């Protein structure tokens, strides 16, 4: 278990989790921004819960759901013979749940700030709702959405509390940077912990830089 494999695992899982939450988060954000419906505040609270709850609680709930005896995990085990808990899939799942609220909020505000006038005009030009969304709403909200993705990605990298419960801290398989740093701190090996922290900082810097470059292009 060398440094590089930890960094690679962390990058892979954080990137995957960020990409996986984009479609549902955008859908929820759009519904929150552009539609009024019964129970809207409830759904919003529900989405914000992983932020409000201590990570252990989120982790426990996930463990119940995704474990072999849980509702989702049990089904996956029986039907597809896929295990979640204690695999990298659990890492991704924990990251997804914890960063979901950040992306939803960011995307929601971004959608709200898009002037509906442009969407209307696009419709008079014959565009379907899907085309309006893809060519007008989404690009105009891009800055906020990318910023939200950056937040989500950063949060995924830093995710610890829920991950250690559902994914464990298995070197080479589920031990991300955060978990490894925690372990090193526990053992009193601070210099090693700081070395790994350095990698996290470098990743954060790269992510900030990429987000910056992407939004600049979008202006």
């Amino acid at each position, binding site marked *: 278990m060398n440094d590089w494999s930890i960094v690679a695992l962390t990058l892979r899982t954080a990137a995957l989790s960020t990409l996986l939450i984009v479609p549902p988060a955008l859908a929820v954000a759009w519904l929150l921004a552009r539609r009024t419906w019964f129970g809207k505040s409830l759904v919003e609270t529900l989405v914000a819960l992983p932020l409000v709850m201590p990570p252990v609680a989120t982790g*426990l709930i996930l*463990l*119940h759901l995704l*474990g*072999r*005896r*849980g509702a989702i995990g049990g089904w996956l085990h029986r039907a597809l013979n896929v*295990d979640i*808990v*204690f695999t990298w899939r659990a890492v991704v799942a924990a990251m997804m749940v914890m960063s979901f609220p950040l992306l939803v909020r960011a995307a929601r505000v971004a959608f709200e700030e898009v002037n509906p006038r442009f969407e209307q005009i696009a419709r008079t030009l014959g565009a379907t709702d899907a085309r309006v969304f893809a060519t007008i709403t989404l690009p105009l909200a891009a800055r906020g959405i990318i910023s939200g993705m950056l937040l989500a990605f950063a949060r995924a990298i830093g995710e610890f509390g829920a991950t*250690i*419960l559902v994914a*464990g*801290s*298995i*070197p*080479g*398989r*589920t031990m991300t940077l955060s978990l490894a740093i925690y*372990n090193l*701190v*526990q*053992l*009193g090996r601070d210099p090693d912990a700081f070395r790994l922290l350095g990698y996290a900082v470098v990743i954060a810097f790269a992510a900030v830089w990429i987000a910056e470059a992407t939004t600049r292009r979008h202006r």
Partner: protein
Amino acid sequence: AAASLTDVMQEIAGAYEKQSRDRIVFNFAGSSTLARQIEDGAPADLFFSADELKMDALQKKDLIVKETRVSFISNSLVIVGTMIRRPPELIGKKIAMGEPSTVPAGIYARQWLTSIGLWKQIEPNVIPTENVRAALAAVRAGNADVAIVYRTDVEPVPHMPRFMVSEGPRISYPFALMKNAEQPDAARKFLAFVKSPVAMRIFEKHRFIVHPFKVQ
């Protein structure tokens, strides 16, 4: 395995993998987290706990193979920070320790202090932390006078004065095979290796107290 066993278990596994084709996969976390995971059906073959109570709980739920349960590694508490010669000197000091109802180190410290009749007097000055490391860090930052931690947590040549708790509760590490182990045979082999003299030396190197007479 318990997080406090990370280094030592990895060294033992390294030694084991040199002589066997089996690969050892660890999951390191707090003992209560691990117990939770096992209760929720997380796949595990062996459990190296830092807390007898957690193992008792699993045994009561019939999740471990009773005959394989062993405890031959133990630890003891030390008080570090300012120089303490006798336990009553703790009164009036700010004391950092693991949370006394959930963190094993804290539970042991509380048991010990209760047994010598000091707990009531010092309780208001206790600063509960999530783990031993945090207690140590609190002392270093100057916000606690002393910390009660495991002897394995402090370097052998510290600049900190220390008081060894000799008459404290028995702090032992129970190991056991899980009932629903997926590879019970390989797991038994590794458990046997952990009980071997080679492993004993590694435990000792990491300042654990070994009771070889308990290994049959």
